[in-house]
């Protein structure tokens, strides 16, 4: 593993290894590549073990993944499908004039009824479910809350996965896949900087207390960024040129970290 270490100069301080554009080109580069691959796999394995997967099970699953014998590559999509539908329903609640109050914010809706009711909204996204089931699902996801027996109010502008291991694991799978897709795109040789997909990081060493403050500072900024992107994408998706079959999912994802 010596390849992963940075070199020491005459003063004893470490110098970062300057990478070449294309690699591997020699055995040292190959060693670095392998070390990075192990690090990526270890990070995934460590995370998966927190979900109750033992080493033996992970080995078996890893073998299946390597040989391409995995049963489905759409498990994350399936798990998140209902949450995705709920997110789209929540977005429409905050956007469509029929579901807004006079101040332009999501209105309180009657659960049943024809026009401007929760039933009419829910039937578009969950056509096979009873409105009461959708209300229960939405309340569990902290997206809405009941008011009395027959009305609901929108609580959040997104679906919160917090507290659900199933949803968080599926979300992690989708996030890693999307990030690797962006990383793969950006590592293409000779790609123009302006043509690359933006990927920015900021970090600094701070205390637990300051991290709490960092969360409260960044939460509205991130929410607004994502909401702005969502509005733009939603409007573009409705255009005729984007209604064809050759469509791909585009988006932006942002999260805070504390290592």
């Amino acid at each position, binding site marked *: 593993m010596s390849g992963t270490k940075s070199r020491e100069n005459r003063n004893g301080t470490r110098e970062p290894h300057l990478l070449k554009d294309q690699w591997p080109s020699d055995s040292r580069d190959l060693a670095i590549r392998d070390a990075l691959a192990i690090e990526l796999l270890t990070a995934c394995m460590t995370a998966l073990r927190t979900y109750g997967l033992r080493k033996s099970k992970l080995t078996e699953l890893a073998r299946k993944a390597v040989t391409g014998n995995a049963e489905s590559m759409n498990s994350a999509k399936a798990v998140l499908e209902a949450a995705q539908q709920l997110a789209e329903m929540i977005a429409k609640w905050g956007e469509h*004039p029929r579901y807004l109050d006079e101040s*332009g914010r999501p209105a309180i809706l009657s659960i049943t009824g024809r026009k401007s009711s929760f039933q009419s909204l829910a039937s578009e996204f969950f056509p096979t479910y009873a409105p009461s089931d959708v209300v229960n699902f939405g309340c569990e996801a902290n997206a809405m809350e009941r008011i009395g027996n027959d009305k609901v109010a929108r609580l959040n502008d997104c679906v919160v996965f917090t507290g659900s291991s199933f949803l968080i694991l599926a979300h992690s799978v989708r996030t890693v896949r999307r990030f690797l897709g962006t990383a793969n795109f950006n590592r293409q040789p000779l790609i123009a900087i302006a043509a690359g997909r933006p990927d920015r990081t900021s970090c600094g060493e701070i205390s637990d207390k300051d991290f709490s403050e960092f969360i409260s500072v960044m939460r509205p*900024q991130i*929410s607004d960024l994502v909401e702005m992107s969502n509005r733009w994408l939603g409007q573009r998706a409705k255009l005729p040129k984007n209604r064809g079959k050759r469509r791909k999912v585009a988006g932006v994802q942002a999260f805070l970290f504390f290592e």
Partner: protein
Amino acid sequence: MSAVEPLVELLLELGVTSPEAESLLRGVFVHKTREWLARQSSSTVEPSDVRISLVTGVHRNFVRRILAEPPKIAEARKHKSNHASRLLQAWYNDPAYLDSSGKPRDLPEKGSHPSFQSLSTTYVPSVAPGVVLDQLRRAGLVQMLSEHRLRVRGRTFRVHGFTRNSIAEVGHRTRELLETLTHNIHQPDARRFCETMRVIEVELPRIPVIRDLINRRATTFLAGMEHELAVEASRSLGTKRKGRINVGLTIYQTERGPKQS
């Protein structure tokens, strides 16, 4: 009593508390007594603190202190954060009362946590929630929605309508804008930021949505700038007042109907 009642109502509208009003009244009382006694006397000598004390019933030590400066609310009496402001701060900052975007939630007026009742009893335990709500509604800071739900509309206590303060704000904002515009004409190489987005036309029924959107985006942006520039502001505290300059950033929305253009 009849003369004082409207004054008390006005003070309530302005968010002035009883101790603040008492402190202000005492100051005005002492200053006016000095003027009154001076008019009564044929001598050119100013009335003594003891005499003013006897007439007003305020201890002579306080009389001296009060007369040393113009009438104002004593610092000790000033409510650093009055009831309404304290509750508003909590509504904007306590995670239990925020949505997933970090913005204040709409709350049911009564009921279990989180509700306006729970917010008020937690942060303003000495005052009935109904009294605090009345104060906030009068100031236009809380909007009553259907189903007894409440929406907060601002975090700073501000009196609406043509008041001395609101007219002063118009003058202040206009001056700031004119200063920036004239500065940019005189010094194009050291321009201060002054940009406008392309004017768009929207359908009239969409105006509330657009206003709400601009409000939320601009508020988030300004809060972000404030946090980012906080380091610069704290760094300048070590330097002398002469070496500092006030920097501000204001965003405002414009609307213009077809008849106005």
